[in-house]
């Protein structure tokens, strides 16, 4: 493996800096965001690198659980922040976090126990990166699906209520929008699977190859990850949209858009 020095990273950073200067010239107003995001990337990844170094050296279950919980809670917050019309109060956060817990945690534990079979099963070198990959991807799927669900419920209020007026149950009245929301959440990962290896070389696999792993081994891991991510995204999106759609109606099956925040 070729060891990267600070100078190597600084050269890469200069490209982002150059882009920021170019943006400034073109008055595209993203130069500041670009620099802040670049600094955040460097600082956050350095910190997590240090945390992982300590964690790998002290493989206690409590520490793995603590870091996993922090990652999960932050992912729940990210999902909420990306929605234009999110549920008010703690509900939206709870739906997103619960759905990710159900999907990412369940799939990660399943993969650690049933596929990787490392002893102990929570070995941080495997558990944390795997959970991170799953959380990152299910987070996107759930955020897109929930945003689509709440947005269409708001836009199509007249249709949903017209169907209720004709005696349809809430599940029937919102079925079309629920289906579209689940589809929206799943499309990115389906596209990623379809394009993998032809249009794009997935990041994790590329990273492993650059770090010196044999390409065939890297590919096997990538396939494993993509299947796990697909299962996690699907489960998480289904759970979030199902719970979210139910919460759009009260016990008398009335559409309650007052439960959504104004944008």
């Amino acid at each position, binding site marked *: 493996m070729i060891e990267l020095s600070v100078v190597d990273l600084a050269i890469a950073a200069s490209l982002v800096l150059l882009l920021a200067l170019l943006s400034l010239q073109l008055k595209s107003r993203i130069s500041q965001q670009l620099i802040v995001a670049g600094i955040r990337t460097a600082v956050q990844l350095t910190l997590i690198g240090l945390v992982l170094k300590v964690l790998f050296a002290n493989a206690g279950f409590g520490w793995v659980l603590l870091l996993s919980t922090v990652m999960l809670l932050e992912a729940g917050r990210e999902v909420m922040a990306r929605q234009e019309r999110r549920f008010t109060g703690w509900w939206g956060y709870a739906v997103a976090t619960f759905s990710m817990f159900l999907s990412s945690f369940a799939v990660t534990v399943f993969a650690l126990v049933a596929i990787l079979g490392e002893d102990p099963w929570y070995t941080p070198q495997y558990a944390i990166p795997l959970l991170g990959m799953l959380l990152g991807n299910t987070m996107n799927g759930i955020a897109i699906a929930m945003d689509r669900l709440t947005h269409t419920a708001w836009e199509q209020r007249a249709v949903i209520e017209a169907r209720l007026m*004709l005696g349809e149950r809430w599940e029937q009245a919102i079925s079309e929008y629920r289906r579209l929301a689940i589809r929206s959440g799943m499309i990115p990962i389906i596209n990623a699977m379809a394009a993998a290896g032809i249009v794009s070389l997935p990041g994790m696999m590329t990273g492993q190859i650059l770090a010196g792993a044999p390409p065939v081994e890297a590919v096997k891991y990538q396939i494993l990850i993509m299947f796990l991510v697909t299962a996690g995204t699907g489960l998480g999106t289904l759970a979030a949209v199902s719970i979210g759609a139910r919460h759009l109606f009260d016990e008398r099956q009335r559409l309650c858009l007052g439960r959504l925040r104004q944008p």
Partner: protein
Amino acid sequence: MSKAPPLLQIKQLSRKVIGPVNLAIEAGDCLCISGPSGCGKSLLLRALADLDEHSGEACLHGVSAGDIPADNWRRRVGLLPPESVWWLPRVADHFSAELPVALQRIGLGDDILARQVMRLSSGEKQRLALMRLLCNRPEVLLLDEPTANLDPENTRRVEAVIDEYRRARQAVVVWVSHDRAQVERVADRYCVVKAGQLVEQDIEGRQ
């Protein structure tokens, strides 16, 4: 022997600007409601269809709405809003049950069922929306200005179809209308909304 409860009974029903409303309407009766815009007529109909949260209760044959599943209640107490809403491309896709009345009775041909909804006029859509509602055979019809988009000839046709349905099935009709002449043609009872209250008047408008 005790008297049977009225088909529709409204007890202390309030929703935002309207209420408390207390009313009992017997089977086969048509109650017309008038009042200025924003006085709460549509809110009252929505509350009766149990689409909005409200205080008080509505009862069908003495059974409270809360004791009847919401979807069942809305099939029995059908609301026709002023603007019809359609969600599938073809007209026929919105009809699963047999039509209660021949389409010719409301001035439409059978071929309209095969047409695309987006190609219909607002008047055609409104008449078809009434047909769609009647397919459920509701016991109570809540009509929110059902003829607002119709010409006089089709207005009379719609009035005749509703009247015939009401008599044949002994249904209750609650009809919001701003048209005094229409009220005189269709109503058995007449109320005006004043300061959030339903004030009953005789059909000719004398209190």
